[in-house]
C-alpha cells in the first residue's frame, strides 16, 4: 500500500465514522435523498420495468381519465391519462430518462471542464486565472436562462444540444471551487517537493492537487444536479427542450396547462416529479457538505 493509498483509506474510514456521529436529521436527509435519486435513476435506465404502458401511444378513447381508472381491458391507470389518452404514470417514469440524462451528462461534462479550468487557474495563476475568474463572475451576474432560451430557440433542441446548454451553465461552480482548493493546496510542502524533483504540471495537478479538491467537488455535484435538472425542465416547459412525443416532465406540464380545468392530475404529477428530484439533489448536496466539508456551509 502506497502512502497516498493509505491516505485514501484513512479518508474513507474517517468518512464512515463521521457518518455514525452525525445528527439523525443529516443521516435521514442523506438516506432519503439517496433513495429518491436512486429511484429516479432506475426509472431513467429501465423505464419499461416500471411503466405499464408505452408512453407515446395515443388512445383517444381513453382521454383524460382520472387517477386509478380501470379501462375496458382491465388495465389500471394509476395516475390517470392525458389529453391523448396516454398513461400519466408511464409518462412520468419515462420522463425521468430525458431529465436525468440531460442532468447527469451535462453535470459530468460541466464538472470535467470546470474542474480542469479551476485547477489550472488556481495552480498557474496569472492571465489565465484572471480571465477565467472574470468569465465566472460574468456568469454569476448574468441570467443564464436568457442565453439558454436564445440558444435553444435559435440553434435547436435535440438532446445533444440540450446537454451542451446545460453543461455550459454547469461548469461555473466547479471551476470556482476547484480554483479555490487548488490555490490553497499549491503552497503545501509536498507540492513544492514535487516541483523540486521536476514533476510536470500535469502530474502535479493529477496526483497532488486534484485529490485534495475531490470532496468539495462532490459537494458541488449535489447542488448542481438539481440546478441543471431545473434548467432542463424550464426549457422543456417553454417548448424549447425535449420535443414531443418523447415524454419529458417540463413538456408534460406545458401540455397540461390547457386542460387545468378538466384534468388536474396531468399538471400535478410531472411537477411533483421535478420537485422531488430537485429537492433530493439539494438535500444530497446539503448532507454531503455536512459529512465532508462543513466549512462550506453558507457558501452554496
Amino acid at each position, binding site marked *: 500500500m502506497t502512502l497516498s493509498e493509505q491516505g485514501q483509506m484513512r479518508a474513507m474510514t474517517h468518512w464512515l465514522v463521521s457518518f455514525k456521529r452525525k445528527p439523525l436529521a443529516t443521516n435521514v436527509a442523506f438516506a432519503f435523498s439517496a433513495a429518491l435519486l436512486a429511484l429516479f435513476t432506475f426509472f431513467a435506465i429501465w423505464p419499461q420495468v416500471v411503466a405499464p404502458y408505452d408512453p407515446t401511444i395515443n388512445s383517444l378513447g381513453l382521454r383524460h381519465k382520472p387517477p386509478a381508472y380501470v379501462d375496458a381491458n382491465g388495465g389500471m391507470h394509476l395516475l390517470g391519462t392525458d389529453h391523448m389518452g396516454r398513461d400519466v404514470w408511464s409518462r412520468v417514469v419515462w420522463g425521468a430518462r430525458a431529465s436525468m440524462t440531460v442532468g447527469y451528462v451535462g453535470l459530468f461534462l460541466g464538472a470535467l471542464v470546470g474542474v480542469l479550468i479551476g485547477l489550472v487557474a488556481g495552480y498557474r495563476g496569472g492571465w489565465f486565472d484572471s480571465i477565467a475568474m472574470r468569465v465566472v*463572475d460574468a456568469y454569476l*451576474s448574468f441570467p443564464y436562462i436568457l442565453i439558454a432560451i436564445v440558444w435553444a430557440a*435559435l440553434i435547436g433542441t435535440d438532446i445533444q444540444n440540450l446537454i451542451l446548454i446545460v453543461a455550459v451553465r454547469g461548469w461555473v461552480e466547479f471551476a470556482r471551487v476547484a480554483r479555490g482548493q487548488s490555490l490553497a493546496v499549491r503552497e503545501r510542502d509536498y507540492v513544492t517537493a514535487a516541483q523540486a524533483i521536476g514533476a510536470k504540471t500535469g502530474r502535479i495537478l493529477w496526483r497532488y492537487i486534484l485529490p485534495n479538491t475531490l470532496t468539495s467537488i462532490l459537494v458541488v455535484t449535489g447542488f448542481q444536479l438539481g440546478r441543471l435538472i431545473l434548467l432542463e425542465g424550464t426549457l422543456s416547459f417553454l417548448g424549447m427542450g425535449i420535443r414531443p412525443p418523447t415524454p419529458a416532465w417540463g413538456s408534460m406540464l406545458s401540455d397540461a396547462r390547457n386542460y387545468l380545468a378538466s384534468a388536474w392530475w396531468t399538471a400535478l404529477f410531472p411537477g411533483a416529479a421535478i420537485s422531488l428530484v430537485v429537492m433530493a439533489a439539494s438535500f444530497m448536496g446539503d448532507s454531503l457538505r455536512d459529512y465532508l466539508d462543513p466549512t462550506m456551509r453558507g457558501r452554496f
Partner: protein
Amino acid sequence: MYRFIVQRTLQSILTVIAVSIIVFLFMQAAGDPAALLIPEEATKEDLALMRAKLGLDRPLHEQYFHFMGNFWRGETIKSFRYYQPLLPLILDSLRLTLVLAGGSLIASVLIAVPLGTFAALKRGSTLDVLLRVIAVFGQSMPSFWVAMLLMLFFAVQLPIFPVSGVGLANIILPGATLSFFQIAILMRLFRSELLDALHEDYVRTARAKGLQEPKVIYRHVFKNAFLPVLTMTGLQLSNLVLGAVVVEPIFAWPGLGYLMVNSVFQRDYPVVVGGTIIAGVIVTAVNLIVDILYGVLDPRIRIA
C-alpha cells in the same frame, strides 16, 4: 472606493457586450432572415437583393455594429412581425415586467418579515417547523409548477382570480407565484439572522438593564437582522425579473417574458435578441448597484 466602482462598472459593461455578441452570433447561426422574409417562389436574385437591403452581405462585425447602433437609437431595425422599432416595443413590455417584479418584491418582504420573526421567536414550535418544511420544499418547486398549482386552486377550483390578462386582480396570481420563492428565501434568512442577533452580547446587556422585551426585539435585534435581508432583497430583484420570463407566458401577463417567448415561436429573432440584451442590462445594472451599495456599507467587500 472609486477604483472598486470603476472596476465593477467596466466589468458589467464588458459582460453586457460579451452577451450581446453571443446572442448576435446565435441569431446569425439560426439561419438567413432574408430567406424567411421573402416569398418562397422568389428567385436567387431576389434573395441577394433582400440580403443587400438588410445588410446581410456585409462582414459580420459590421453587421453587429449596425444592429447595435440601430437598436440603441431605437431606429430602423424593424422586428419581423411588429411594424415598429424594436427598442420602444421592448421597453414598453419591460414596464409591465417591472411592475410585476416590484410588486412581488414588496409583497414578499411584507410577508416574510413577520413570518421570519415569528419563526425565530417561537423557535421549535409547530408553526416554525411547518414554515421551514414549506420553505425547503418551496425552493425545489419549479416556478411554472407553482404557477399552475395556484391557477388550479384559485382560478379553477375556487374562481377567485382571473387566469390571464392585465389588471389589479390579474397581477395577484403571477405575483404570488414569484413571491412564493422570495418569501421562502427571505424568511429563512431573516429567521437565522434574528437568531444570531438574539444571542449577541448587546441583547443580553439590553435585557440586563431592564429594557422591556418588545423594545429589545425592535431596537436591538430587529434593526441588526434587517440589513442582510435588505441586501438579499436587492439581489433577488434580478431573480424576479428572470422568474417573470417563465411565469408571464403562463398568465399571459404581457411583459418582457411574454413578448420574448412568443417571439421565439414566431421566429421573430430580433425581438428575442433585443429582449435578452435589455433584460441583461437591467439585471447586470441591479447587481452592480447592490454590489456598490454593499461596498459602501461594508468596506471588507471591496478588496475581494
